[in-house]
């Protein structure tokens, strides 16, 4: 089985770890070997959270710089910052909804323009799928479901070694029961946005 390396970057509180868990469970359902690792030292305090997920027959559970086949970013500046993890054939999926770091929010440091960031990503990688995941999560009636929207978009790329059904099943079994309908809706909206 071909090895697929996926990196998810997000700001603490955006639900990166749950997205990773859903993808891990989906792999388990589909019988695909999976190794994941996470760095979330300061997540609660506004830092960046990164998950690495490796599908297929590899033993490592982390991904070196320049070796992610897919990069999913929940926040555009974080996606751009993580571009060093990508290579020329990488597919990038990013939300366009900004969450400026508080330094920039307080006028210390300039938050780059969204169009400029997207143009750079497009120039350097194979494909960029970019949309406002927060808006879709709101449409799904759960603004916290940005993670599920992006998981939906990821499933639509066909780059995962399993289909959308496995992911939906994982959403049903791993996310909190009362959020499942909204999460599935968010998944569908993300799937649609990327199809």
């Amino acid at each position, binding site marked *: 089985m071909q090895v697929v390396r996926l990196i998810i970057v997000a700001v603490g509180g955006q639900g990166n770890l749950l997205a990773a868990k859903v993808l891990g469970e989906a792999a*388990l359902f589909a019988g695909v070997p*999976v190794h994941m690792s*996470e760095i979330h030292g300061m997540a609660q305090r506004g*830092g960046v959270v990164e998950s690495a997920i490796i599908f297929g027959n590899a*033993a490592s559970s982390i991904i070196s710089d320049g070796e992610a086949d897919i990069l999913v970013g929940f926040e555009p500046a974080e996606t751009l910052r993580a*571009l060093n993890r990508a290579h020329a054939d990488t597919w990038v999926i990013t939300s366009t909804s900004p969450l400026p770091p508080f330094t920039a*929010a*307080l006028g210390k440091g*300039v938050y780059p323009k969204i169009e400029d960031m997207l143009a750079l990503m497009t120039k*350097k990688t194979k494909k960029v799928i970019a949309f406002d995941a927060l808006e879709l999560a709101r449409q799904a009636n759960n603004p916290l479901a940005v993670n599920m929207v992006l998981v939906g978009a990821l499933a639509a790329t066909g780059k995962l070694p399993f289909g959308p059904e496995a992911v939906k099943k994982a959403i049903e079994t791993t996310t909190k029961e009362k959020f499942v309908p909204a999460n599935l809706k968010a998944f569908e909206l993300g799937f649609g946005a990327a199809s």
Partner: protein
Amino acid sequence: MHKLLEDAPGKTLLLLGNEAIARGAIEAGVACAATYPGTPSSEISLNLFQISRETDLYFEYSTNEKVALEVAAAAANCGVRTLCIMKHVGVNVAADALMTLAYVGVKGGLVIVSADDPFMFSSQNEQDNRYYGKMSGLCVLEPSTLQEAKEMTAFAFELSENLGQPVILRTTTRINHSTAAITLGPVSPRRAGGGFEKNPFMLVTVPAVSRKLHTRLLERIEKAGDLAEQSPYNFVQGKGPLGIVVNGVSFNYAADAVNDLKLGGRVSILRLGFANPAPKNLIASFLADKEKVLVAEEGEPFMEEMVKVAAQENGLTLPIAGKGKELFSREGEFDPALVRRVIARYFSVLYQEPEKLDLADLPPIPARPPNLCAGCPHRASFAIIKKAAKNSEVMFPTDIGCYTLGLLPPLNAADFLICMGSSSGTAGGFARFSGKKVISFIGDSTFFHSGIPGLVNAIYNNHDFTLVILDNGTTAMTGHQPHPGVDMEALGFGGYNRIDIEKVIRGLGVENIAVIEPLKVKKSIAAVEELLEKPGVKVVLSKELCPLYARSLGKVSKRVFAVSDKCKNHRVCVDELGCPAMYIQDGRVQINPGQCTGCAVCAQICPENAILPAK
């Protein structure tokens, strides 16, 4: 039922490394667990804490790692299988107990988890605790995969009982915080009851006893070495004239590299999972038919030294290398590409590194440093202390916890830190020699962990400084674990007592004490100003719950603040507090109602009284 209790051998679950370790202990019938929290070990403890609520497993959050190990040593000497969990630097705190416990030994299995943190994702250093095994004479087991982490944990209990010695299970962050599919094994019944048989001339370490015990320890090390020779955790994978010696996660990276570089048939890997004491014969026989050997291990050249010793003792002169300029570093952590590159270079394999993206034209992206949360009382305490001390030249020894973030602007309230508890100890030395007024910060959990002796010392030796105890009612940094000052009733847990920090400091004889509520800014500044005038040891006890913790207790304020049009835009709030709920829009300070906790500190700092409760 807790998911780690399910007795379903053969079932596969997606588990975090730390859950796999906890499960391994459950499968081994662990009956006692003691810990002091510390990343990356904390989820092992959290799971066992939860499990202890629904079974007869005894679990405790001890006041520090030394005490945790002492409780564990006693339980294990009563024949109870015990797990003692800590981060790598915790072993330093426990080291005094550890070194002589190795002499005394155990009856029930005792497994000590040392969670090391190469690259220091969340630690103050990246020491390599395999050397503790060498120094104490205890076995060190190191898993490469999460399945192995579970199995080795269970095996470690058997090994411990077989040798009568504690066993160290050494992990790194990439084991603790990785996730994989784990196949469960059967759960052994817990033997919760213990018993103690007196045998003082083997258990009381006066010199005459310890001399006997040292002899016995050396015999046990010998026996352990034989076990390491036979252990299935030490194995050779692949065949070829080139050798790579690996441990922990470096095994995975090396195995992937051998595949990627198509070195099958040329490279043979020796994986040492039971690496202390050294399986010398195994290593020597591995070396015997090799042309060249590379040792791939994060951290220090621990195996490299043992491999070189084995070569020397066997008269082998092949090149052996590991750490070095063009090879592996002793700093940071490995990654697959790094290991691939070093293997290719060392064995002169033709290898085209994948092309990196040229990112030279990326604009500067504003950093996202961690920050104290919106409404964090530590931020208020820093602001109060700095305002109260504004007329003197001050230095701030600090300590480890969320409040270490006081280091960053705009708070700039951290000048020196080495380890937990060092705030109260170093403050005395700085008070004597820095030529500055000394104000030192310590958290409540850290105060109980190791801050009290420094304070006692300061009172006794009559040092002149102020210790600010930031009592937020929890161990926030590592995930809001309880500590001896926590109100366990509020958490819904009976059967605990609570230690009142104020009574402790008064009991020690500190006379100059200001107990403040940091969200009452002006009153607190006045109280601290008055206190700072006094000579000798002074204590500010700043009491306010961490708002994240308060929220988990169901205590939330509905109030939020907003900047009114009285704002004259001097931005004192931004420049002195830097609360992450604030942002600038169209040149004006705004407050994000979704983040504001309503602490009102900015409202009290604003010279225009322009920040008001939102309508």
